């Protein structure tokens, strides 16, 4: 399909009407229990953030199982960091997303080193509706194009368009100013446009 602007008002609204997620309301969680590896504090933190971490990983990774592993590994890294006396200093969410970003990057780096293609095979032909196959192919094209972007560009697109975080929320999570995120988003979309097929469908 052609990625030239097919923005009817309804499709545009569908694509972008993802206001701030309600769980972004507060990130001021107590950190004390974490450093004692308190199971209740860890469980609470895990249950609060695992779904959004999974969604981020799934946005960047073609395979749901790999995304689940990556999100889960993020919390193991948190444990290891806490054990070393490190870990989040203020915002656990920013720390978790920063760590997950590196895990996803490492996944692609390792796959590249092994010469493994990291795209999913999509729904199998038998019984899969044409629309589902087409949608899956389109997603693969986007993921393939995303791999040409820098890690930070992929990160900002995953947060903005995958997670639906606002400019300000993304800035906070990336430890940047909102204007810097705006510029990064602009360049990320420029780069994505360059690498998307013009007549993919």
């Amino acid at each position, binding site marked *: 399909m052609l*990625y*030239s*602007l097919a*923005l009817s008002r*309804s499709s*545009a609204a569908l*694509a*972008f009407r*993802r206001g701030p997620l309600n769980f972004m309301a507060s990130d001021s969680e107590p950190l004390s229990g974490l450093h004692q*590896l308190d*199971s209740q504090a*860890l469980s609470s933190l*895990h*249950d609060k953030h*695992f*779904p959004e971490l*999974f*969604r981020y990983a*799934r946005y960047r990774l073609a395979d*749901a199982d790999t995304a689940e592993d990556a*999100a*889960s590994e993020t919390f193991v890294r948190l*444990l290891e*960091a*806490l*054990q*070393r*006396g490190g870990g989040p200093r203020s915002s656990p969410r920013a720390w*978790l997303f*920063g760590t997950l970003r*590196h895990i996803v990057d*490492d996944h692609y*780096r390792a796959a590249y*080193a092994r010469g493994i293609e990291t795209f999913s095979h999509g729904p199998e032909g038998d019984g899969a509706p044409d629309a589902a196959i087409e*949608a899956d192919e*389109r997603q693969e*094209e*986007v993921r393939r*194009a995303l*791999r*040409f*972007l*820098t*890690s*930070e*560009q992929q990160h900002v*697109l995953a947060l903005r*368009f*995958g997670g639906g975080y606002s400019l300000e929320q993304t800035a906070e999570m990336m430890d*940047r*100013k909102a*204007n*810097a995120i705006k*510029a*990064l*988003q*602009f*360049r990320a979309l420029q780069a*994505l*446009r360059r690498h998307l097929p013009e007549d993919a469908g």
Partner: protein
Amino acid sequence: MKPRAEDLLQAALESAGRGQGIDGLLAGLSREEAAELRALMAAATAASSLGRSDLPAGAARRSRSRLLRRASSMPSAVSARPPLRRLIPRFSAAALVALFALAFGLGGLKEAAATSLPGDALYPVKVAAADLRLQLEFEAAQRLRLESLYAEQRLEDVRQLLALGRVVPVSFHGRVLGISATLWQVEDFPLRVTARTRVVGEILPGMLIEVEGISQADGTILADELHLQSYDTLGTLESLDAEQMIVGGRVFLLTGRSVLEPGLVVGDRALLRVTIDDSGVRTIVSAVRFSPPTPTAAPVETAATAPPRTPPPPSTSTPAATTTDDHGGQGGGTQGPGDDDDGPSETTQDPDDDGEGTEKIEFNGVVQSIAGSQWVVDGQTIRVDSETEIKDDPGVGDTVKVVAFLLSDGTWWAEKIELED
């Protein structure tokens, strides 16, 4: 005043998010600008098409169980041991007294321990003594000198170890000089990197990393874990307080160990040495006022900022002194100038505008690999970020023309990569 392109894009995204069209925004634009905005919105639609995925059934439970199992197997006491000390056993108070004596040259152990190598019984004593000496040094500049000295000693230990062909665990800090899929060059050591190697941080040539691995009889090191330790970057100091500084739009934390040049003030060009932890939190090791080198002045070099190493340019290169730059920083575009945007001076700076002393190369070559922000063209590793102009979508195997600059951290940043006919 005409709005910036990124502001227009954001306004269009917000408008689309409200279910409104972007015709009103397009009205005031030229045909080219309108086409560009439409194309970016199409890219945004594509980016949104990946959408959000439902959490698989049981995924959260599985992950929570894994987390709690792992937590229960860990001691509850929080340890603040830095990674290099993982190889060192805990010592009794008596041993600490002995170490104290050793650290300051007292007692007969010193000579014996000084010649020990990784794997030897006395090697942990040697490392711990150096570490204790560091802990007891409170003067920042002297501490940095000692750190540098001990780091060089660790490298020499590894050199001797490899020459002897011993197979033992090693841990050291070094600068990355080359990266390929399976073989990295760190200092003068070839590192074998496998799928099992854990790489933490976006490591690029020129950066300082911590290596943990096992020396091999063939003179290589099998890498177990590679941690980005620090990198150098340059930018304009935007704010400074007791806890943090903002340079080029990015926040850097300050600790009691951060060394700042006296008199460094907002508005100065600052050369930073930065450490970065697993989550990407950046902490200042040192910050000095940056003055571009002149033909008669020595390059900026302090105890806190070791001189950048210069990888050999490709044989087809034609180095020419042209510029300093703002493109240092963590790899993967994390500190690209375009990403620092909070003012046109940082985002649109022409590298040729800013003094002299940094090399520029132009050469034609074949693209051998593309791995995210890292391209290899004719054996030369080149960093690409959001500011790089890439024309005609070259791919692996294509012949391209490259214009690149040598950055302060020793890496080459591509200003332009163009497909050649």
